[in-house]
């Protein structure tokens, strides 16, 4: 095959489609489609990217019934992942993490003072490579809010996979919880699957195939990498996949780059939103280990991973006003 000239390459790059994609599967506790609408609005405002939603028919009906709005106003494409429910039921893996009749239960905090259990439907996240309609995609978790345009730089970086390897709390400190830094203190560093840039390339395919392999052999990799048993965390699966593909090394390379504007700032489950004004968000940042202690912090123009989903719900309309 003749080599492309540099000029042709850049021309070629500009014709490749790009967009953002979100996965949302509702459950009894969390309306993920509603969160996806907020996150997609922030992406459209600051990154000006077309957005696609991957969901199932039940979640879509549930959302439209509750919210009286149509998701196709926010998303260009709505992809119904028909396989999801069947996959979940067939997957031998899920029966291991069953509580009662519900699968893969996660305990969620809503501030330190309230908790709830909810199903965590994340087993098919690796399938995003096959489902995305774009040549170059940024996968966003629905609890990620984009508040500046810096992630657009990811499309100019010549790395097939880009994600966050570093995170910081609302107080600009490193993560409090040990498993938000490493899978275990003797093990590999944690990479976040919250936001992932990928293109349609053999290397990207290999990464998502490896992710699938790690998921299918999760127990084995749990014993090798010594992460906590129980919940299937895609962050762990992604971290292990990268480590395996890098030849068992923790090194910097051109294939797996860090997303622009690292570290990723996050609002932890025990943090809360105090108020939302026209430019930014005032938070109660809870102190790790001293649950009675909250510090007011303010964030404006920073991308945010908002882990406390109930807090988003409480301030949903105000947050949405930031992105209209």
């Amino acid at each position, binding site marked *: 095959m003749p080599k492309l000239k540099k000029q042709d390459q850049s021309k070629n790059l500009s014709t490749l489609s790009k967009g953002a994609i979100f996965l949302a599967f509702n459950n009894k506790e969390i309306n993920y489609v509603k969160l996806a609408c907020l996150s997609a609005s922030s992406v459209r405002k600051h990154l000006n990217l077309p957005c696609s939603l991957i969901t199932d028919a039940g979640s879509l009906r549930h959302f439209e019934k509750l919210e009286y709005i149509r998701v196709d106003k926010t998303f260009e494409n709505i992809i119904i992942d028909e396989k999801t429910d069947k996959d979940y039921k067939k997957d031998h893996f899920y029966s291991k993490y069953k509580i009662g009749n519900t699968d893969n239960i996660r305990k969620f905090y809503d501030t330190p003072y309230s908790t709830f259990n909810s199903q965590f439907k994340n087993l098919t996240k690796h399938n995003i490579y096959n489902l995305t309609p774009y040549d170059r995609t940024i996968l966003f978790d629905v609890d990620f809010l984009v508040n500046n345009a810096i992630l657009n730089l990811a499309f100019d970086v010549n790395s097939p996979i880009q994600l966050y390897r570093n995170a910081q709390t609302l107080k600009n400190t490193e993560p409090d919880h040990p498993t938000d830094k490493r899978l275990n*203190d*003797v*093990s590999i560093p944690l990479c976040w699957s919250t936001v992932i840039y990928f293109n349609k390339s053999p290397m990207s395919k290999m990464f998502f195939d490896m992710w699938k392999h790690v998921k299918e052999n999760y127990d084995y990799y749990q014993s*090798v990498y*010594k992460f906590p048993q129980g919940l299937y965390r895609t962050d762990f699966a992604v971290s292990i996949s990268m480590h395996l593909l890098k*030849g*068992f*090394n923790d090194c910097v390379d051109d294939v797996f780059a860090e997303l622009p504007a690292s570290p990723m700032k996050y609002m932890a489950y025990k943090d809360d939103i105090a108020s939302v004004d026209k430019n930014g968000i005032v938070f109660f940042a809870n102190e790790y280990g001293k649950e009675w202690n909250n510090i007011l912090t303010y964030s404006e123009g920073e991308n945010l991973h908002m882990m406390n989903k109930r807090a988003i719900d409480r301030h949903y309309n105000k947050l949405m006003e930031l992105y209209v």
Partner: protein
Amino acid sequence: MSRGYLIYAIDEPYISMANILKKSIEYHTNDAVTILSNKFPDGDATFGKKHKIHNFWQIYWATPYDETIVVDADMLFLNDYSYWWNYLSKFDLLFPDTIINYKQETIQHPQYDKVFIENDIRPAYEKMFYFKKSLLAQEFFTILEQVIKNFNKFSNIKGWKNLLNHDWISYPPSHMATSYIFPICIKMLGIEDVIYDKNDIFKYIDMKLSCLNTSNIIKWDEDLNYWGDYKEFYIENFKQYYPLHYRNAEIHTL
């Protein structure tokens, strides 16, 4: 200019370890390796001593090479590092500026030796170092001879305070070890600015427990998973690239 590795090893188990290290160097490189366990130019001063480093200063005169990389016996070469030679030949005496643990985390000086750092002496990371037959290296080994021969003068509080030139209470090194005497010699000569590899090319992996950034490990060879041999070696599924200082661990796969 002749080049080669020199392993200082007196008595067992160090001679066995040195032989494994020699095998690992010869597997990965074509470089010459010498194990120095007897035939010291100034005689053997280690007889009846617990810590057998009394002949260490004689390395300069005992090495058969013009350029030498000295390596501790309880190390393992895991790759071909021949590219170091051309870089190292620009220096007369060179120690790693930083070293890493098996997770590829850079070891901070206070993790390695808190007491020395409190006394304003940084660790020398002398488990692997380079020297060329030169004035600076000869000067270093000459002062090393004096420190080894007069170690009792440093290992009491008065001598220690004189060396450090301060009055506050600090504890002198309890026993003769290279990790104590090398930093002392470097401090006495005032050569800290020129003998550390600021480019961070020359380095090794150290399994010192205080440097592993983890708790609940008493013996790394029992508490961490490892597999492989000198061809390739993994600890907790991290493939080790640089020379591994395994610190007397019993690695049964070697």
